[in-house]
């Protein structure tokens, strides 16, 4: 097991270096000149040239690559053009917010996906199964930004102004403007309320996907001999399904963790922008618009690295849960 872990960790290193390389060239070979975005009318040619030198854009691209990679290995991700701060500081501000949102969405998605898929599978072809299939397919096919807008419309705008429901959820930011003056309990509630809509928008697609896999996995497991053995022992159906079958049906679902993290991160780009969530997704989106190359590169690199880490985590988790691999 330890050997397996070390092997996987070592294998991840060239992968991450490869990702860094691709990210660098994809950004730097894209047409367009970042300086064009920052010059204003009336600037002399010298000032523009000076700006290019400051941005480090005067050198040929392969030299820039070597320098960038070298600096990155020492933990220096350069200087943001638009934020006028070290990229690392920018990341430190925004990355945690994205991680909070992603973690919430992921937890919600796995929880609901697993439960719904199981509920479908244990009554295959029932009304419940078909109805859930239709609803989940709907959520699976709808783009998350559309869902986000509908959620805002329903649970924020109409709920508050038109229908005057007692509960509605804020549609923008991570906290209210009067956050600092709230009591501790109210602060927690305020934060949670702000999480609800973006988390739901992000989680819907994932929930539907996970439920679909879970249904299939559960159907496969439920007809195995060991499930019959469990019933023949006199266990209640609840224990048979939620202990004996679930444990086995979850194994293939663990791999989805690695598969769905990229979906999640690309989702944050839209969702954070729509909900004005101060996270990495929105920051990358804005950095692309402002040609802020260092931020785009560092942000993409971190996202890609986290995908690698998530896959690694999924594999280790799998090995840990499945005794057949654990004791190999």
């Amino acid at each position: 097991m330890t050997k397996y872990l070390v092997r996987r960790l070592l294998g991840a290193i060239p992968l991450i270096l490869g990702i860094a390389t691709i990210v660098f060239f994809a950004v730097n070979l894209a047409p367009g000149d970042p300086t064009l975005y920052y010059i204003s009318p009336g600037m002399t040619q010298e000032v523009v040239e000076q700006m290019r030198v400051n941005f480090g854009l005067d050198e040929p691209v392969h030299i820039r690559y070597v320098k960038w990679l070298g600096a990155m290995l020492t933990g220096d991700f350069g200087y943001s053009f638009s934020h006028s701060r070290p990229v690392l500081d920018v990341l430190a501000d925004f990355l945690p917010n994205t991680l909070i949102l992603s973690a919430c969405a992921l937890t919600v998605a796995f929880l609901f996906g697993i439960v719904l898929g199981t509920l479908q599978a244990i009554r295959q072809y029932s009304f419940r199964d078909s109805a859930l299939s239709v609803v989940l397919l709907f959520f699976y096919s709808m783009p998350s930004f559309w869902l986000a807008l509908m959620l805002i419309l329903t649970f924020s705008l109409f709920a508050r102004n038109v229908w005057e429901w007692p509960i509605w959820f804020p549609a923008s930011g991570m906290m209210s403007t009067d956050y600092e003056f709230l009591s501790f309990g109210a602060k927690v509630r305020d934060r949670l309320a702000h999480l609800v809509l973006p988390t739901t928008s992000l989680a819907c697609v994932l929930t539907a996907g996970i439920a679909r896999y879970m249904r299939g996995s559960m159907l496969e497991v439920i007809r195995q001999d060991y499930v019959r053995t469990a019933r023949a022992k006199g266990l209640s159906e609840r224990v048979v399904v939620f202990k004996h079958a679930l444990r086995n049906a979850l194994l293939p679902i663990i791999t989805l963790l690695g598969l769905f993290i990229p979906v999640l991160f690309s989702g944050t780009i839209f969702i954070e922008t729509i909900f004005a969530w101060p996270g990495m997704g929105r920051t990358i989106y804005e950095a692309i618009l402002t040609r802020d190359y260092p931020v785009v590169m560092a942000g993409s690199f971190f996202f890609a690295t986290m995908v690698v880490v998530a896959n690694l985590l999924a594999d280790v988790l799998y090995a840990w849960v499945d005794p057949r691999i654990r004791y190999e």
Partner: protein
Amino acid sequence: MSEPLLSVRDLRAWFFTDQGIAKAVDGVSFEVREGETLGIVGESGCGKTVTSLALLGLLPEPPARLMDGSSVRFRGQELVGADEKQLRALRGNEISMVFQEPMSSLNPVFSVGDQITETLRLHRGMDRRAARAEAVRLLGEVGIPEPARRVDEYPHQLSGGMRQRVMIAMAISCSPKLLIADEPTTALDVTIQAQILELLAELRRTLGMAVLLITHDLGVVAEVCDRVVVMYAGQVVETGTVEDIFVRPAHPYTRGLLGSLPSVGGAGGRLVSIAGTVPSPLHWPDGCRFRARCGLAGDGCEAPQDLVELGAHGRAARCWRART
């Protein structure tokens, strides 16, 4: 004579499928007496497994359904239509099962010990510590070396024979009155088969339980059974003591089975086949269901055949010729 331990009357388990109604078990009656070993033999697909699962209400419903008039009485209690809670109290406790496939019958993600203690804690209300000690003892009893170490192992770490021993340990953990073993040795190689059968026979003696042994193998029947039920096409075609069946078979099908043994009454002979194919449970033939394959088929065979009682000891055959 006292009431039998298990009494099955006119059991009909039908599957309602898209292709039609599969009458997999279509009027099966037999009884198991306290402490005896009853063998059920018959070709593949004749409904042996469906019968055994039906006894404890373990068939998937739908598609399966037990038809009206079916009756399974265990120590005076009717099990057909009994509520789930009553059945659960019996399963794994007073009636337990060992299945054909030791490779897939144990849950791969739980340790052997966990799977045994689960039954003990459920039916015996033992605490974790006591259940574990009992599991180790049971593993020793079914002949697993180093039980204290094996108890923490997972099914994939054990050989097929060892896994079947674990299944047996699990099945006897609550000292059942009846053990149903559905082809417990079919998936194992010959030397292991003999050991497992030996173990079952020994446990039956020491625990005083009855065994319902389902098998393809007439050699096994001759060796360990007291009485035999021969099944064909969802029905019982002949019942009798081992001696009756092997020495004086009354039904042509039974004779066919015996004829396909390398040496009658000898051990280890695996069933070859009788000429012709087994009909599909979707369309059983009219009249005698064995007619198309029977060398003696004649005029009296077009009518549906009833079980003909032969003597007083529950000996019977489903063939009009047996009457004479």
